[in-house]
Structures are given as structure tokens and as C-alpha cells.
């Protein structure tokens, strides 16, 4: 099939769910008994999408763009090393094939150069939302290997989830449906009509929105579908609208996302005002003129696809910052600053959508939605949209913006992993795990690991949707989310248990270290750790933290995943009533599990005898210019190493061992505590009471936001409303009252608050500090020993930091 069929194919794949949505909205419950056929329509639509996506991938894309073997690490490593200034520490004892790779390096390098600017992509506009002179907001498409990969991934997972939901949502076919979690005023449970069709209506709308987001040809269109997936998520989280917790969670999700969108809008404005275009690709208009997209403007061929702000951006930046600060080569920094703002702004949107710190709070609450939703929307696809956008928008991120991305990702993955350790709700553990894994992806992208991050996005989508669907199966069986009421279920539901085990192994990156054999997570997570290692070795200093955290995080991941598995499936049943009623789910639910389990194992592999693998496909989409090592302009000491450098054998060796070691440590700890019961979790909790409480309360983020943002906002709103009333009613008395009142208030305020307050506060501080120090004097020898050990560690870290500061 010709490549020109791609837009049509993908548009069909994209719009079919919309048609399904429309039909279900209009006909609703009249579709079969209790709207039962709505499910079939929806499933049919998504199957059409899947087929179309796969046809697009295998029928239209691959025949026209044969895959090169990008995983030939030696070759690509050498090719990348040319562009870098880092000393080539290639060890001399490479094996025979390593030398062969070196011999190939020159050829491969030349080929890479030739292909560097020729990344196949198709771009076009369908219609304009508005047009003003050269400015144009359009609805269009941008199709490259990444788009096609995402289409296949999204539609495939969505299809599995749709089918699964036919079984999972079966209860909703009953009329009336009894919601056991909602009590009405007479004390009974809520009886309401089933909403089977509504669920599939939202799922279809979501599929449409998500695919639209992926196919979008410009930032504005991304934003449109960005919001649409947000609203679908809102509807799906709040699917049980009668539950207060569900509607709260839905609101929280949408508003938190809006906070991110606020940043995204700022980024978009900065781009729009300076470049005047949102398009990703270059378009040749019918009259032969070329309209350059963002990427071509920022990375022109004349600059070897390096990121250089174009003159109009510099001008706009100078206008914005009124800055005349110059860089080393005499140019102005303003363009880079603007680029930084645009990048960070766009990333803010991704922070919201992908639940990154500090906007991660909504995702765990989003688990109020039905489990298929959690699997599809809140783990595999929508929350990955943020990562996808970072990947899509990658050529426009300056190294400083990338550093922000990496740091945010790093903080997120750590915080989320720590919270997951204490969570007892099976879905919340998975939710935090999702947040944490998204943090990994962001980290990887931020550190220059473009392909690694997106690869992890794909693999994670499969194993995480698998994990969620398994948890859904468990919940379906025991009617509880609380892991403390489970245990021993593997005897009752073996398929669920062992597919979930596959998912757990995939997420911790199980594989045989130093070989190329493992589950899907093994490849992608190792790639991320390698990139982090490469980055840390290049930049040194505090940047080592960006390596240490993911490694520690890997240990925590293994710990909480297996904690989950052991608590749920291993050991003895903790709640016999629930255990006795548990049963394996019907085939309509387990078959998707088996399919997803297959993908969770194999999606990282290369199809034998071909070059067909996700990595190679992604490599084909790698935007021009990002493969090279780049250096910061605003932060000159920052170097983002080329991704190819991370394939160096030493780094692979060390990173592979570190990742494996960390995973094994976590696994061992979980086994010791939750399987062998050698250590008693209750006692550990007792010892770590403050830490435990911190983690149990999710680092108090909700409380913090409530106190620092929501309540002041509401208070301000009330003030403003009250101000309005005061203007009306008290316009005349106001001034006199105010002038009398102010003097009084001022006296009270100043004397009592400022003067007395200062003195008292100092006294209180001293007292409190003394009490604080007193608590350290426990009198226990053993704790003093620990203080000594901790002190040693702190001393080491401090000395290294001081040294780093002194050297840089």
C-alpha cells in the first residue's frame, strides 16, 4: 500500500470511535436490552481502529520505510561518540563481534548522516480553526513512525480493555443496579438504572480523543485533544456519579490537569508569539510555498539540526525580557530564555497529564473509576500522553528544559515509589507505580534518552494495563480493593495470579543480566538506567543523584510490586469470607489478560530474522538533530549526552548490574518480609512511625495543597464576593467605618502581633529547638551507633558536594 494512504487509514482508525460515541449518545439504552449492544458497537469500533492501525503499520508504513537495525550498539555507539567531547573510555578487551562492529562503524555512521535529515513524516492540514495572515490554527495530521507505533499500541490496548470491560461492567446491565457503596437517606443501598451504554460511550469518546491526540499535527490540536482526553477521564473517574469520592476525584483530576494546562498555555503563547506557528511538520501549500513547522524553524538544516532560536524568537525574547545579556558568541540569550519558557511551559501540561510531581496527586484518586478505565486511561494511554508529547515536542526542548524534565521525573519517581510501599489499596499501589514509571520515562527523556523513554512508554503501557486488568479481576472476584483482606488467591484464580506475576516481573525489569534476554521491562528500564549513567558520568557532581534515584527506585519498584503480589496471591487467606467467594474471572476477561501478558513478555523483543522491533521503529522516528550530544547555553556546564553513548559496553555493564542488583534487593526484601515473614511488617511500621505516617498520608501533598492553595482560593473567592456586596450595601458608610476601623486594627495588629509576637516567637523557637534536640538524646546506645553511621554518610556526601562545588 502506498504511504499516501496513511492519513486516510489513521483517520478512519481515529474517527470510528467517534461514530460509535455518537450512535451510543443518540440511541443510548435503546441499543439492545439495557443498552447491551452499545458495548458491541464500541468494541466493534475499536477493533476497526486496531485493524486500521495495524494495517497502517504493517501495510503502509513498513513496506515503504524498511527498518534499519538501530540496536547495533557498537556501531551506533561509535557514531554517537563522534559528536561528543567525552573521552572515549572504550575498554580494550572487547570481544570479537565488538571489533566487527567497529569495522562497520564508519559505514553505519555515513548512513546515519544521510538519514539524519530524512526522517520520514507526513504532515498535512484538514481545515483551519482560524487564520490571520500568516498565522494559522489548524486541524491536521503529523504521521511518523512514532505516530504509527502509538496508534497500534493505543488501539491494541484499548481493544483489550474494551473486551475486558464487556465482562467487568456486566453488573451495569442489571436494572436496577445496586451500588453497595452509596447509602441513601433511608439507610438502604442506592438503586439506579444500569449505565452499561454510558460506560462504552465514554470509552469510545476516549479512544477517539486519545487517537486524535496522537495524530495531531500541531500543538494547538494536541491541546484540543489534550483537554478532550481530560474530560473523558473526568467522566470515567466520576462514572459512579452517586459516590461523593468519585466526583471529588473527577474534579480533582480535571482541575489539577487544568493547572498543568495553564503552564502549557503559557508555553504555547511563547511559541505562538515568537514563531507564529504550531505545526510540527513542514507543509508545501498548493501554490508551491513551504510553510515551515516548529521543528524546522528551531533546528534548521543550515545549523546541522542543532537547536538555535531563530531571529524572530530572539527578537521576541528581547522584547519579553528586555534583555541585552549576551552569550559567548555575541548573540543574545533572550531567544534561549524564551525557548526555555516555551519548553517548560509545554512540559507543565505534561506534568499535569502524566501526573508528575507536583501535580501527581490526582492519579491515585482517579482509581475511583472502574478498573478497565484505570487500565486504559490512567495507566496505559492518557497519562502516557504527557510523555508522548514530551517525545513529540522533543526537538524544541533546550538542554535546560530537559534538565527540568529530568529533575521533575526523578523527584516523581522517588516520591511515588515511596508512597507505593505503604499503600494497601491494590489499585492505588498500581497507581503510584504508574506515577513512578512515568517519572522514569520523563527522567529518561530529560537526560537525552529519547528512544529509551518512549520505549519504556510502550512497554509500560502493556505491562501496566495487564497489571491493572489483573487487579480488576481480583477486585471483581473478592469485591474489595484492600490487600489486607486478600491472600492466597493464586489457588482460586491461577490465570489472574500468573499473568499478574508476568506483569510484576516485567515491571521490575526481570531478565538475565548482561544478556539480551528478558521481559519487556528489562530492555526499557535498563536503557533508562544506562542513559542516566551516561548522563551522570558526563556531568558528574550532584547529577549523580539523577542516577542514584532511579536505581533506588528500581529497588523500591521491585519491593512494592512483589509486596502486592505476595499479599494478594501468596500466603494464607486473611479474610476467609472473601476468599471463599473468590473465583476466577470469565473468559471474556481472562483472554485479554493472556494477550496482554504475551505482549508484556515479548514487546521488547526483535522479531526473529527481521529488524522488526519497537526500538528500531522508534529509532526511525527520532527527530533530526536530537541524536547528537547537546550543551546548555543558559547553563553552560550542562551536557546532554547523545543517546548512542549510553550503549557503550562499560556503561551497559555497570548499569545492567546496578539495575539488576537493585531489583533483586527489592525483590529479596519483599520476599523476606511478605513471603517468608522473617521480618514482621507491623514491627517495622512501628519503628518507622513518623516516616510511615508521612508515606501513608502521601507526603501530605493533599493537605498541603488544601491548606496552601484550595482554601486560600476559596477564601479569596468569598472575600471577592463579599467585597461586591460591601460595595453595594456599604458604599456610603464604608469609608468612615474603614478609617475608624483601620486605626484600631492597626494598633491591635502592630502592638500585639508585631511587637509582642516577635519577642514571644523567639522565645518559643528557642524552647522548641531545645525540645527538638532533647528528642535526639534517646539514651539508647544502639541509636547512637546509628547516628554515627548516618553522620558518616552525611559527611561523605557533604564532602563530595563541597568538592564538586569547588571544582565546577
Amino acid at each position, binding site marked *: 500500500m502506498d504511504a499516501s494512504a496513511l492519513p486516510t487509514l489513521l483517520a478512519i482508525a481515529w474517527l470510528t470511535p467517534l461514530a460509535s460515541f455518537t450512535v451510543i449518545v443518540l440511541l443510548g439504552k435503546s441499543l439492545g436490552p439495557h443498552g447491551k449492544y452499545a458495548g458491541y458497537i464500541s468494541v466493534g469500533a475499536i477493533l476497526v481502529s486496531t485493524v486500521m492501525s495495524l494495517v497502517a503499520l504493517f501495510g503502509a508504513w513498513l513496506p515503504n520505510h524498511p527498518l534499519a537495525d538501530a540496536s547495533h550498539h557498537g556501531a551506533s555507539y561509535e557514531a554517537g561518540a563522534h559528536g561528543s567531547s567525552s573521552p572515549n573510555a572504550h*575498554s*580494550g*578487551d572487547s570481544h570479537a563481534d565488538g571489533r566487527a562492529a567497529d569495522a562497520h562503524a564508519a559505514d553505519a555512521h555515513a548512513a546515519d548522516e544521510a538519514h539524519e535529515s530524512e526522517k520520514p513524516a507526513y504532515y498535512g492540514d484538514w481545515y483551519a480553526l482560524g487564520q490571520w495572515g500568516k498565522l494559522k490554527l489548524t486541524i491536521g495530521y503529523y504521521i511518523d513512525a512514532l505516530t504509527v507505533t502509538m496508534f497500534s499500541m493505543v488501539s491494541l490496548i484499548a481493544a483489550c480493555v474494551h473486551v475486558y470491560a464487556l465482562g467487568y461492567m456486566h453488573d451495569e446491565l442489571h436494572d436496577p443496579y445496586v451500588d453497595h457503596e452509596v447509602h441513601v437517606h433511608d439507610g438502604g443501598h442506592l438503586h439506579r438504572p444500569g449505565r452499561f451504554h454510558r460506560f462504552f460511550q465514554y470509552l469510545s469518546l476516549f479512544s477517539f480523543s486519545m487517537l486524535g491526540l496522537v495524530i495531531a499535527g500541531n500543538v494547538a490540536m494536541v491541546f484540543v485533544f489534550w483537554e478532550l482526553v481530560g474530560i473523558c477521564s473526568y467522566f470515567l473517574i466520576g462514572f459512579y456519579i452517586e459516590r461523593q469520592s468519585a466526583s471529588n476525584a473527577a474534579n480533582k483530576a480535571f482541575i489539577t490537569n487544568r493547572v498543568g494546562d495553564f503552564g502549557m498555555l503559557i508555553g504555547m503563547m511563547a511559541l505562538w508569539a515568537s514563531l507564529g506557528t504550531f505545526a510540527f511538520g513542514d507543509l508545501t501549500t498548493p501554490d508551491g510555498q513551504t510553510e515551515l513547522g516548529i521543528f524546522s524553524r528551531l533546528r534548521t538544516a543550515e545549523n546541522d539540526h542543532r537547536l538555535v532560536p531563530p531571529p524572530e524568537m530572539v527578537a521576541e525574547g528581547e522584547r519579553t525580557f528586555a534583555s541585552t545579556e549576551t552569550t559567548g558568541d555575541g548573540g543574545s540569550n533572550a531567544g534561549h530564555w524564551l525557548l526555555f519558557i516555551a519548553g517548560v511551559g509545554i512540559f507543565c501540561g505534561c506534568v499535569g497529564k502524566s501526573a508528575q510531581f507536583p501535580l501527581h496527586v490526582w492519579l491515585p484518586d482517579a482509581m475511583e473509576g472502574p478498573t478497565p478505565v484505570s487500565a486504559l486511561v490512567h495507566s496505559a494511554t492518557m497519562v502516557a500522553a504527557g510523555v508522548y508529547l514530551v517525545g513529540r515536542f522533543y526537538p524544541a526542548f533546550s538542554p535546560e528544559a530537559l534538565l527540568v524534565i529530568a529533575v521533575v521525573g526523578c523527584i516523581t519517581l522517588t516520591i511515588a515509589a515511596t508512597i507505593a510501599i505503604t499503600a494497601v489499596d491494590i489499585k492505588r499501589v498500581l497507581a503510584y507505580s504508574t506515577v513512578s514509571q512515568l517519572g522514569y520515562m520523563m527522567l529518561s527523556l530529560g537526560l537525552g534518552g529519547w528512544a529509551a523513554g518512549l520505549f519504556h512508554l510502550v512497554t509500560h503501557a502493556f505491562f501496566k494495563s495487564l497489571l491493572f486488568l489483573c487487579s480488576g479481576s481480583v477486585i471483581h472476584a473478592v469485591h474489595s480493593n484492600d490487600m489486607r483482606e486478600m491472600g492466597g488467591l493464586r489457588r482460586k484464580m491461577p490465570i489472574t495470579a500468573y499473568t499478574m506475576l508476568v506483569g510484576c516481573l516485567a515491571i521490575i525489569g526481570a531478565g538475565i543480566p548482561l544478556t539480551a534476554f528478558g521481559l519487556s521491562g528489562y530492555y526499557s528500564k535498563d536503557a533508562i538506567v544506562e542513559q542516566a549513567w551516561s548522563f551522570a558520568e558526563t556531568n558528574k557532581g550532584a547529577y549523580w543523584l539523577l542516577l542514584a534515584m532511579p536505581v533506588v527506585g528500581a529497588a523500591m519498584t521491585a519491593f512494592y510490586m512483589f509486596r502486592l503480589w505476595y499479599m494478594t496471591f501468596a500466603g494464607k487467606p486473611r479474610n476467609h469470607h472473601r476468599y471463599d467467594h473468590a473465583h476466577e474471572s470469565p473468559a471474556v476477561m481472562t483472554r485479554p489478560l493472556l494477550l496482554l501478558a504475551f505482549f508484556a513478555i515479548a514487546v521488547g523483543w526483535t522479531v526473529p530474522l527481521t529488524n522488526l522491533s519497537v526500538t528500531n521503529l522508534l529509532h526511525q522516528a527520532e527527530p533530526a538533530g536530537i541524536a547528537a550530544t547537546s550543551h546548555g547555553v543558559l547553563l553552560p556546564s550542562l551536557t546532554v549526552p547523545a543517546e548512542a553513548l549510553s550503549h557503550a559496553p*562499560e556503561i551497559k*555493564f*555497570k548499569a545492567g548490574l546496578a539495575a539488576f542488583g537493585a531489583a533483586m534487593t527489592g525483590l529479596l526484601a519483599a520476599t523476606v518480609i511478605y513471603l517468608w515473614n522473617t521480618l514482621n511488617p507491623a514491627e517495622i511500621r512501628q519503628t518507622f512511625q513518623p516516616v510511615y505516617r508521612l508515606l501513608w498520608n502521601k507526603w501530605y501533598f493533599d493537605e498541603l495543597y488544601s491548606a496552601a492553595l484550595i482554601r486560600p482560593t476559596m477564601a479569596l473567592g468569598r472575600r471577592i464576593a463579599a467585597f461586591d456586596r460591601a460595595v453595594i450595601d456599604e458604599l456610603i458608610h464604608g469609608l468612615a467605618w474603614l478609617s475608624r476601623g483601620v486605626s484600631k486594627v492597626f494598633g491591635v495588629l502592630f502592638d500585639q502581633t508585631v511587637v509582642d509576637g516577635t519577642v514571644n516567637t523567639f522565645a518559643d523557637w528557642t524552647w522548641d529547638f531545645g525540645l527538638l*534536640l*532533647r*528528642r*535526639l*538524646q*534517646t*539514651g*539508647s*546506645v*544502639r*541509636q547512637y*551507633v*546509628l547516628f*554515627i*553511621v548516618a553522620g558518616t554518610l552525611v559527611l561523605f556526601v557533604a564532602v563530595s558536594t563541597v568538592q564538586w562545588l569547588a571544582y565546577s
Partner: protein
Amino acid sequence: MNSTFHLANLLTEPPGIAHFMTVGAVLFVCGAMCMATKRNALGVLMGIELVLNGANMNFVAFGSQYLQNGGEYLGLDGPLMALFVIVLAAAEAAVALAIALNFYNNHDSIDVDRADQLQG
């Protein structure tokens, strides 16, 4: 010298300072953890012995000419220091044991968690 660690060369390369230091580190950490986890005062004492031994290992390693690879060399100072450590460890053990016995006599217990009179 190749800084990476290769299993194949394990038994054909002579051990270096780093190897001894690793053993020392393990002993040290075991000792420290003994001190941190044991409730029996004598267990704590044994931890101290292990810690001292771990430290001693470094003195010996740095003072040994067979392990030299062009780095720091303590010469005779190494073994001499090690010797002092051993002797002082003996003294320390004697005094600590005396303290432990005294504690036992007074409190009828050997649990160090009971010894918290210094609590602030």
C-alpha cells in the same frame, strides 16, 4: 589496569588493596549493625570487636608491600597501627566487660535498651 571486575580473572590476578578494603568494609558494617541491632550488651561488644577488625584490615592492607600497585603505602606504620589497635581492643574489651558485668549486677539485665538513663 582495568577497573572493571571480571569473573574470569578472579583467581589469576593477585588481590589488591581494594579487595582487602571490601572485606574490611563488610566486617565493619557487620560490626556496626551488630552494635545497632543487638540488645545484649555483649553482642554490642562483639560488634565493636568486628568494627575494630574491619578497620584493622585497612591498616594491614595499606601497609603490605604485596598489595602495592603504585598508590599510597603506609610502610611499617600500617602493621604498627594494627598492632596498637589489637592491643587497645583487648584493653577495651576488658573494661567494657567490666562495665557490662557491673550493669548486670545493678540492673539484673544485660539489655542495653534498659540503659537509657542518659535520655534527654
